[in-house]
């Protein structure tokens, strides 16, 4: 069965410092992996997706994620956090029938 584990429920960074949100996946075959962002009281927005074309995936708003099969990881990074990045982030795996969500990581950005 497919699953994802987000290793941190809450990450706090200062504005201008790097962001790292960690995600490990479990899959019996080559997975399709996604990162979604949810701003407070808003819907879900796709940040980026991995579908085996390239291990380093670039997304919107300066985010990127690297697929590492040896570590079964798909961590999300950004070089410099903005206040507007404060939101809930979800690591997601597709099992061909639907999306399976991690429990989410809340990112706080301090001025």
């Amino acid at each position: 069965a497919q699953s994802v584990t987000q290793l941190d429920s809450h990450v706090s960074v200062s504005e201008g410092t790097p962001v790292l949100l960690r995600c490990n996946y479990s899959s019996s075959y080559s997975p399709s992996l996604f990162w979604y962002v949810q701003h407070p009281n808003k819907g879900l927005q796709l940040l980026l997706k991995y579908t085996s074309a390239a291990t380093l995936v670039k997304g919107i708003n300066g985010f990127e994620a690297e697929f590492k099969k040896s570590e079964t990881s798909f961590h999300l990074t950004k070089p410099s956090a903005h206040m507007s990045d404060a939101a809930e982030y979800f690591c997601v795996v597709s099992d061909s029938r639907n999306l399976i969500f991690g429990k989410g990581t809340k990112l706080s950005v301090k001025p």
Partner: protein
Amino acid sequence: DTAVSQTPKYLVTQMGNDKSIKCEQNLGHDTMYWYKQDSKKFLKIMFSYNNKELIINETVPNRFSPKSPDKAHLNLHINSLELGDSAVYFCASSGTGTGYTFGSGTRLTVV
């Protein structure tokens, strides 16, 4: 020109009432979904329909009944509402080779 639209955005109702949430997509996708996001932000699949046919029906109380009159619409009807039904409900759609597009959510509050 909204891709996936849900109505209403907010719904406050008393226990025991029956209510419906509507969802429409104009992307030409074949598959539509209902996800539930609980108070801890956890998102889980409830139902999915492919071209009006039910393909995923997770362990959801019988009080929840999805209806898909055509492949562009997937409505969610809930009978005898309970306090525990309070959540945000997201509609989504997907097509072959395309990603998932989510609606902006319906926040249901049962009082």
